C-alpha cells in the first residue's frame, strides 16, 4: 500500500512542480465558458437556460484534455515498465494515478464552478446541486478517461482518439448531471439524479482500475 501512497505523492509533487501545465485544464475551462456569452449574446435569460449544459460540457472537455498526459509521461520515460515489474497490483497503481489526476484537474473544476455559474447567470438555488453534481461527475471523468488514456498511451495522435473513445461513455454522466441541475432550477427534487450519479461513480470506481491496468498491459505489449 505504501507504493500506492508514494506514487500518489509523487504524481502530486510532479503536478505542483509543473504548476502552469497542471492548471491548463482549468484555464481551458474558463476560456471555453466565456466563449458562450460572446458567441450567443449576453442575454441573461438565454444564458441561464444554457448555463448547466455549457458548464458541464466545458468541464468534460477540460478533463479529457488533461487525460492524454496521464500515462504518456510514464510510458515514455519507462516508469510504466517499472510499475509492471514492481509486483504491485497495477490496478492499485493506476488508481493512484487516477486520484492524482482528479485532484489536479477535477477538483479545481469543482472549486471554480461557482464562478462559472455566476458568469452564466445560473439561478443561485441551483448552485449547490451544480457543485454536488460536479463533485460526483469529475471523478467519473477521470476513471473512465483513464481507461481511454491507457488504451491510447502508445499512439502518436492519441489525444483526439481518446476523446472519440470516451465521449460516448460519458453521456450518462452528462445527462444525469444536467438533469439534476435543471431539476433544481425548476424547483424539483434533484436528489434522485445525484444518487444515480453516486451509484455510477462507485461502480466505475470499482471496475475502472482493473480495466485501466489491463489496458496498460495491452499498450505496453
Amino acid at each position: 500500500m505504501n507504493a500506492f501512497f508514494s506514487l500518489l505523492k509523487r504524481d502530486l509533487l510532479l503536478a505542483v512542480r509543473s504548476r502552469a501545465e497542471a492548471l491548463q485544464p482549468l484555464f481551458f475551462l474558463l476560456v471555453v465558458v466565456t466563449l458562450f456569452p460572446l458567441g450567443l449574446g449576453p442575454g441573461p435569460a438565454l444564458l441561464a437556460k444554457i448555463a448547466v449544459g455549457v458548464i458541464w460540457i466545458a468541464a468534460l472537455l477540460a478533463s479529457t484534455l488533461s487525460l492524454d498526459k496521464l500515462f504518456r509521461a510514464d510510458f515514455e520515460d519507462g516508469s510504466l515498465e517499472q510499475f509492471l515489474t514492481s509486483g504491485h497490483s497495477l490496478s492499485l497503481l493506476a488508481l493512484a494515478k487516477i486520484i492524482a489526476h482528479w485532484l489536479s484537474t477535477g477538483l479545481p473544476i469543482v472549486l471554480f464552478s461557482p464562478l462559472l455559474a455566476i458568469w452564466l447567470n445560473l439561478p443561485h438555488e441551483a448552485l449547490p446541486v451544480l457543485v454536488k453534481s460536479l463533485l460526483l461527475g469529475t471523478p467519473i471523468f477521470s476513471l473512465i478517461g483513464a481507461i481511454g488514456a491507457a488504451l491510447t498511451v502508445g499512439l502518436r495522435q492519441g489525444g483526439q482518439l481518446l476523446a472519440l473513445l470516451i465521449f460516448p461513455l460519458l453521456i450518462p454522466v452528462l445527462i444525469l448531471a444536467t438533469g439534476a441541475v435543471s431539476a433544481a432550477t425548476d424547483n424539483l427534487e434533484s436528489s434522485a439524479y445525484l444518487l444515480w450519479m453516486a451509484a455510477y461513480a462507485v461502480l466505475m470506481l470499482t471496475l475502472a482500475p482493473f480495466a485501466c491496468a489491463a489496458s496498460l498491459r495491452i499498450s505496453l505489449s
Partner: protein
Amino acid sequence: MTPTRKKRLTVVLLILLGVSVAAAIAMTALQENLLYFLSPSEVAEQQMPTGRQFRLGGLVKEGSVNRATDSLKIRFRVTDGLKEVEIHYDDILPDLFREGQGIIAIGSLDNNRVFQADEVLAKHDEEYMAPEVADALQKAGHPRASKDSTSVAPSEYKP
C-alpha cells in the same frame, strides 16, 4: 493459499463490495420519486411563489381553451381532477394539443396566480393499430386518448 490465489480473492471481494454498494445506492435512488412536473393540487399545496420557474403538468380541461383570433395567444385551464390552474401561452402549440390531452408546461406563476408558460409539451400515446382495429375500439366506447400511457389521474400522484 498461494499469494496469487490470495490476490485474486481480494480482487473478487473488492469488485463484489463495490458493485453491491453501487446497487444499494441505486436502490435508494429508485425510491426517490422522479417528479417530472407538479400537478395543480401540488402547486396549491406548496403555495408556489410567484416568478419561480417550474413545470406544471395536467390534463387540458374540456371547454376551457380559448384562442385569441388575432395572435397566437391562448388561454386554457389545466386540471388533475382536484384543482385547476389557468395557463396563458403565446407561442406555437404542439400539433397534438387538444382538449383532454395531457400536457407539461414550463413557466412560472404571475402575481394573480395565472401560469405564464414559456413552453408547452404535448404527450403522445404510442399504440399502433390497424385502422379497422382503431374504429372497432372507438365504437366500443374506449376513446383511444384515455388510454394515454401518461394519463394524470390523481391516484397516480405520489406526494
